[in-house]
């Protein structure tokens, strides 16, 4: 079988600007202002030499046989999008060479070139042409596109009056009926409601399986990657880390991610420099683990129980204190809290580790962190806080995978807590 794509030592470097030297003093400031146009000219024209080079991709070589669906996975900043941009000819590689056999179309964004003032019908033609279709091809696909997007009655309405859902459906529909030999897709499936996502996924299967098209697919959603791809490559910090069966590569991806995310927070060097509380007892170490088997982890499903191990050092004797945990979203918004019983004790200069389990909750997929507090008392009789540590025990709730491979869908606007719905009964 011939190769649709051959990559040979592809690399892409970006220049990171460095701060202009000598910016102290008025004379220097004036000199700097006067010479700024010359410096800027050198910088903007790319002639600047003393800026640091950052390799977004380095020495990437692999081949993609015709008809293969290749998944490209990696953490943020691994170079996935840069690779797709090079193959799409949006940006030029700094070194190396790629050979692409056949027409290539890229979907790095849904609805590129849609104009809000134009109608749905006009945008189908415009977007189709931008994606590389000829007028005749769009004519031939037009009815299918409209049918897929389910917006027949709004075709003559400017898309600026569309709801975001309608807009995304139409935009995806145009892309879904592209028929290049090679299709490059970046995360575009993460659009629309659950029903439409499923439909998109189905269409993706048809496209990739149906007629021997080569597909390069980048996603953070491992369930989708597993469902769609024949083979995967794993990128990390711009280099090719692994290449093989999707299941194997996805496992390595998770390992890599878990290795990157810290499960242990050493806070001992804060000693004597606490910012909050009396300091009678201080948190010196926090560890996060899966409660089921006690394995340190920062990745959980929404129903996993989480265990926090909190090491506390007492400066003096402390009796009947408790450990409280406040769970926050990545942006710092509190999600909820739990308070252990006032049952912990330490004698003077003693260090102990206490386990707090977060049971019986369901968090939506996303990134979270914790604030831990140690203290005693209650609002009625007076409360004493010994210590508090914020922004520790970061963890990620990974999306659930439905049986059909689509991601469990949860809109950010629905908040972070998944309540269990009881029966809805008619009472009047």
């Amino acid at each position, binding site marked *: 079988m011939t190769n649709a794509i051959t990559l040979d030592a592809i690399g892409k470097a970006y220049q990171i600007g460095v701060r202009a030297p000598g910016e102290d003093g008025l004379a220097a400031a004036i000199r700097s202002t006067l010479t700024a146009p010359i410096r800027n000219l050198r910088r903007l024209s790319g002639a600047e030499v003393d800026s640091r080079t950052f390799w977004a991709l380095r020495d990437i070589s692999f081949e993609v046989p015709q008809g293969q669906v290749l998944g490209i996975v990696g953490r943020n900043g691994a170079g996935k999008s840069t690779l797709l941009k090079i193959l799409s*000819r949006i940006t030029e590689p700094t070194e190396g*060479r790629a*050979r692409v056999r056949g027409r290539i179309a*890229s979907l790095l*964004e849904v609805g590129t*070139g849609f104009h809000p003032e134009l109608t749905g019908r006009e945008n189908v033609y415009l977007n189709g042409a931008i*994606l590389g279709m000829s007028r005749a091809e769009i004519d031939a696909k037009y009815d299918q596109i409209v049918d897929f997007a389910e917006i027949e009655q709004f075709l003559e309405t400017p898309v600026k009056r569309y709801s975001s859902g309608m807009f995304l459906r139409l935009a995806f529909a145009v892309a879904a009926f592209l028929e290049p*030999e090679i299709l490059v897709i970046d995360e575009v499936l993460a659009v629309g409601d659950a029903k439409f996502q499923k439909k998109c996924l189905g269409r993706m299967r*048809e496209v990739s399986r149906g007629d021997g098209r080569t597909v390069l697919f980048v996603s953070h959603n491992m369930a989708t990657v597993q469902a769609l791809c024949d083979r995967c490559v794993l990128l990390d910090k711009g280099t090719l880390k692994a290449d093989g069966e999707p299941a194997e590569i996805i496992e390595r991806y998770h390992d890599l991610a878990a290795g990157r995310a810290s499960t242990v927070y050493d806070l001992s060097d804060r000693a004597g420099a606490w910012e909050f509380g009396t300091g009678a007892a201080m948190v010196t170490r926090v560890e996060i683990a899966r409660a089921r088997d006690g394995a340190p982890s920062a990745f959980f499903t929404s129903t996993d129980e989480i265990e926090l191990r909190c090491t506390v050092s007492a400066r003096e004797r402390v009796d009947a204190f408790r450990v409280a945990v406040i769970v926050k979203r990545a942006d710092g918004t509190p999600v909820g809290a739990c308070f252990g019983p006032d049952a912990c004790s330490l004698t003077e200069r003693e260090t102990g580790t206490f386990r707090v389990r977060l049971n019986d909750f369901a968090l939506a997929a996303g990134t979270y962190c914790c604030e831990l507090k140690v203290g005693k008392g209650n609002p009625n009789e007076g409360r004493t806080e010994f210590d508090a540590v914020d922004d520790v025990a970061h963890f990620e709730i990974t999306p659930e995978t439905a049986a059909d491979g689509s991601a469990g869908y949860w809109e950010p606007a629905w908040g972070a807590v998944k309540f269990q719905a009881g029966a809805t009964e008619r009472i009047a």
Partner: protein
Amino acid sequence: MTQAATQAPATDAPPPAPELRELVIEPKRGWIGVDWGELVRHRDLLGFLIWRDFKVRYKQTVLGLGWAILQPVFFMLVFWLVGASAGIDTGGVPKPVFYFAGLLPWTFFAVGVQLSSQCLVNQQHLLTKVYLPRLFIPTSVIVVGLIDLAVAGVILAIIMGVYQVAPPAQIAMVVPLGVLLLGFTLGVGYLFSALTVAYRDLRYIVPFFVQAMMFLSPVIYPVSIFGDTWGWVLKLNPMTGIIESFRAAVTGTPIDWTGLGMGAGVGVLTLFVGLAVFRRIERRFADIA
């Protein structure tokens, strides 16, 4: 995986094309030629872009295409007034015809340069999210100006009718003059649109350039007022030859072929420089936009 394999293949797919073109992607150095084959393959896209730019230009305006007329008509009235008080000699040509005939090519050039210089920075997603022949983007903006030009041409015909200026045989010259005007405007548009992506200073330079060009082109005055000593400098500006010849073509006065030839030479040179600079900066568009 297995359920995917049992999925029925798409029935609507045409058989794959037998010959597949191979594309080599590698770093390029120096000056790059224009890939004409690619432009021809994507010609439908240029059509859609022109059509989009036309539809969008006057969307949600009350007057619509009326603006294409109003602007030159307004300036004609102003010039008429100013020209009359300054005692500018239009060589026997009725003043409204003289000014309006000069304003047609000038307005096309000024609007084309101003809109095209901003068109790439205003549509960065077309540079960073998809690949298309980027030369089409400024091209379509400028080509749409031809529609304004045609509409204003109808008004010119009406004004000529009112002043009983009969079109001479050499009116056919407006076609090659239009081609030259388009070519020069495209050259400046390519140059400025690409430079604006790299150097945002152009945002300040372009309006300044257009204003300066207005005074350096015989829009409000005939080039004859400069006499023979300095007139040739003015003729290096392609707009001088275009505007003067356009006036001559519609009013029947003799065409200054030397002046037009000089302007045409500079105009064609500008087009090549514009294309070359555009292609050179284009490689970096996605990285710097």
